């Protein structure tokens, strides 16, 4: 009982404690940000941060340049809280890193506490404070919360990291701070194709790059960084997230598709020389630089012909290892619905190996691959079923977002369970888990995990519903990068079909072969298709379907849910009511 009491005491107000920490961080950072703009106000503003000395501002370099090169002469800096606007002059800049130090002539701000790179850890909460959409012109700056999604070492020994804070025009150059409001880095760029992923240039990197300039070095100083104290639940969150991400990402692999396997590709016989006006096919960029054995390096290898069906943007995805040589990945990356393609698996230990397709599930749009050589680390599945999840549970999405340059490790974004049993009537994965964690192209096939790094589901491409008989009600691309609408097929659904896929099955949506209407009494058969399973079993128009496999079906949703678990070729016991008689018919789905 005592235990219970103490736990409750800890538990009470954790949410308020976490909030306070984020609010304070935002407030601290806000005092040190400035708006950087040109007097003519062309384009979006930039955000800058006061570092080192009270009149020195760090921001991005390129937006401050004239068209022909050279800095613009009308640079201005506006201090926060309705502060002064003063002219700015360039102190020192670094073209490669795209950073610049400006001096605010006659202006003074509040310097921000710096943080070293070692304080950046995967999964920690970070706060961005910037002039999103030039908010600094009239109103307050904008605050956004994210996590450190990935950390990348550069060749020169410095590093950059990715954060899932929002990226919008106006906030470039904005400080990304830890929960103490200490400067970890500034927002350098958006990762193209991976929504909600920003590249952050760490402060320590800035200091190293400017070490050559004596003036800058004197200002930025080399004092030891103050060590922050991490004890609130918001700080502990980072630790837990990091452990979860590290556990889970060992089982998340990258999947790449190459040339089509079969020579009998639909356009193989056709003449392939086309005038240059046709869109040039995308050049393949293998991640590992090893040359294929045999043959000298040709100056320009012929690009592979485009294969119909293998769509743009479907040549890369993530996958989850479910055994040491088995990987579940999105069906699209295998070339479906076109011919199968060569597949390469990039495992988290840095090695690459080829893979072949064992079985496919066209309902869930997933494929099971056998990886040559094996040696993968199998994922840990979450013990509870997806239906037991509640909205609000913390989740992390782990995968390889598209366009992540040179990331060996999967990235991690954070969110909550937005609802369970999502996608009813939209996608066959009817029990999908919905999340607001940032999902983008290459995350497809990645893992949605809980706080202990256990897999709750496989991230689904919700835009990919074509040919399933379900209508995606929204415009194409509505689920754009980081729209906050991500979906995952629960791991138990995948585990249930795994034996069949291992045995080489091709699971297609199972159809009864009837058209149905529903009213208050239940589901009625309107018509029966000729040569369908239902027709063969003797289902007739006008019948009311009461049960499927013994489970009652009061409405269309219940019926769909049961059908979703079945594949073509499966047998289904259909109980119908026909003129006060109850009949049970065995229908083979086709």
């Amino acid at each position: 009982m005592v235990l219970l009491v103490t736990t409750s005491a800890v538990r009470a107000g954790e949410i308020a404690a976490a909030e306070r920490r984020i609010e304070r961080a935002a407030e601290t950072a806000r005092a040190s940000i400035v708006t950087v703009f040109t007097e003519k106000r062309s384009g979006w503003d930039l955000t800058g941060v006061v570092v080192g000395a009270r009149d020195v501002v760090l921001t991005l370099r390129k937006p401050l340049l004239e068209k022909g090169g050279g800095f613009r002469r009308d640079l201005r800096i506006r201090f926060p809280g309705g502060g002064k606007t003063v002219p700015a002059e360039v102190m020192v800049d670094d073209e490669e890193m795209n950073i610049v130090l400006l001096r605010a002539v006659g202006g003074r701000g509040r310097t921000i506490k710096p943080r070293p790179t070692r304080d950046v850890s995967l999964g920690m909460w970070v706060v961005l404070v910037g002039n999103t959409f030039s908010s600094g012109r009239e109103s307050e700056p904008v605050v956004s919360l994210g996590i450190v999604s990935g950390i990348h070492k550069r060749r020169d020994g410095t590093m950059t990291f990715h954060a899932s804070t929002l990226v919008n025009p106006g906030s470039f150059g904005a400080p990304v701070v830890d929960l103490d409001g200490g400067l970890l880095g500034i927002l350098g760029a958006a990762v193209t194709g991976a929504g909600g992923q920003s590249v952050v240039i760490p402060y320590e990197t800035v200091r190293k790059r400017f070490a050559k300039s004596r003036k800058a070095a004197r200002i930025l100083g080399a004092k030891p960084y103050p060590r922050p104290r991490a004890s609130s639940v918001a700080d502990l969150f980072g630790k837990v997230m990091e452990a979860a991400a590290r556990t889970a990402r060992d089982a998340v692999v990258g999947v790449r598709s190459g040339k089509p396997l079969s020579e009998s590709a639909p356009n193989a016989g056709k003449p392939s020389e086309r005038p240059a006006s046709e869109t040039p096919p995308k050049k393949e960029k293998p991640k590992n630089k090893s040359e294929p054995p045999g043959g000298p390096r040709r100056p320009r290898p012929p690009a592979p012909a485009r294969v119909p069906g293998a769509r743009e943007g479907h040549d890369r995805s993530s996958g989850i290892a479910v055994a040491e040589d088995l990987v579940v990945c999105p069906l699209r990356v295998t070339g479906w619905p076109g011919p199968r393609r060569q597949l390469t698996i990039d495992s988290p230990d840095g090695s690459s190996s080829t893979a072949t397709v064992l079985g496919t599930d066209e309902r869930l749009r997933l494929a099971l691959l056998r990886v040559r050589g094996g040696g993968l680390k199998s994922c840990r599945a979450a013990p509870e079923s997806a239906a037991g999840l509640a909205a609000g549970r913390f989740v992390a999405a782990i995968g390889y977002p598209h366009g992540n340059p040179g990331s060996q490790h999967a990235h991690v974004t954070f969110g909550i369970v937005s609802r369970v049993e999502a996608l009813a009537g939209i996608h066959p994965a009817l029990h999908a888990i919905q999340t607001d964690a940032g999902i983008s192209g290459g995350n497809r096939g990645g893992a949605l995990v809980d706080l202990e790094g256990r897999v709750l589901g496989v991230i689904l491409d919700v835009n990919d519903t074509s040919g399933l008989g379900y209508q995606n009600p929204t415009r194409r691309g509505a689920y754009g990068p980081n729209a906050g609408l991500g979906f995952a097929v629960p791991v138990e659904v995948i585990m249930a079909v795994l034996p069949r896929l291992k045995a080489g099955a091709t699971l297609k949506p199972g159809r009864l072969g009837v058209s149905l209407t529903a009213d208050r009494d239940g589901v009625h058969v309107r018509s029966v298709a000729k040569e369908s399973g239902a027709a063969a079993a003797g289902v007739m128009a006008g019948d009311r379907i009461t049960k499927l496999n013994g489970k009652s079906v009061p409405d269309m949703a219940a019926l769909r849910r049961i059908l979703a678990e079945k594949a073509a070729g499966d047998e289904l016991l259909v109980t119908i009511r026909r003129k006060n008689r109850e009949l049970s018919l065995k229908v083979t789905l086709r």
Partner: protein
Amino acid sequence: MRACLFLIVLAGSVAAGPETDLEKALTRVRALESEIVEVIKKAAPAVGAVVNHRTLLDPATGVVSMRPRSLGSGVVITRDGFLLTNVHVIEGAGYLTVTLPDGVTYPADRHADTSGGRVKGDIAVLKLRGRRHFPFADWRAGDPKRLKPGAFVFAMGNPHGHALDGTPVVTMGILSAKGRAAADKRYLYVGALQTDAEINPGNSGGPLFDSKGRLIGINGLMQSRAGRSNSGVGYAIPIEQVRLFLRRMMRNEGEMGYGFHGLSVDTAPGEKGARVARVEANSPAQEAGLRRGDVITRVNGKRISNRADYLNHAAQLPERTIVRVQYLRRRKRRNTHYKLVSYDAYLKSVGRQRRDPSRPYPLHERGYLGAHWALKRGAIVLTRILSGTGAAKAKLESGDLVVSLGGHDIGADPKALVDALARLPAGADIAVEIERDGARRSVTVSLCDARDAAELDE
């Protein structure tokens, strides 16, 4: 919940002996997680998915139908079923339904909204029917003024129709900023809350809750630049702004609006305040003595240092509010006050009309003949008279040939017939000249509401 926690504690202490740092951290983060789950559980039952069934008219036949056309969200704010949503969610609605998390779809009536101003406000109140007591989120409890940027917020609703079964989709984020004047051409968004909790089409009208599950705003607008950046910029109308209207809205049906000042302002360069760029003739501001070039520095005691401040503190006030204005004229401080009027009242006072009489009414407001028609042998012939409508009362019969409507010859053009009706509201009378058995006669038909004659098509 309690039992569950107990288990965690036991597992921690029995299995591992002394807890590692990570386990301790996990316990606390789990506690945070379960608090969030509880907040969502508490708030979610009041959130509804709104379906707007629009009225459609087939000009070739005169058949009116209603189809679910657009989706949105809303939140129940009183026990007896007042629901808060956006005007843009319910615009053009033939009829409205709201599905709550209990899975039940309730019919809803338009009650009042803020579309009466010069620029429309985006606050609407519906009244749900079909249940005595509804679960509700208290509209008096939340206080966004006391929240700081960085506070956790939860947006709930029906993005892209994903919550049509009633269970809302929840996204979590933080309060990014307050007092934002968002750029929207159609509706006035001033003093808005900004959040990085993801708001998508369909979330409109849905609630924004704080970390205690209190209603702090109504989500209505998002900003994104596709391709270049992600979303993560959502705007909500703060509940304190809604409260300025709400009592009146629940008491009275119909339209009201943000009050009309008759001012347009910009930010004075190098000066603190909102500079008056224009004052409309006979407006409250003009009558109170404000002139072009004056710099407004305070409104109702609130300091105004730029145009955004003016929008946030002055433009958000409802009609019939008294406004005290402090301003500078030739560097001299002056004070004045005036009472905001409704835009309609202002227009009437200057002898203008809000509606341009040559503009057609939207379909759900215009009058409906109450008959179907078809083009036969080069003339418009009535094919069916709907019972209970003006056409039936005027004893029109199927087979009658329509010669003219309100004095306009119809000829063989169904479009001319639709156009002749489009400029009359429901309830108006129109002279219909028909030809029956070779004889022409004229009758007066009282136009009905198209929604009453619609074929329900779901």
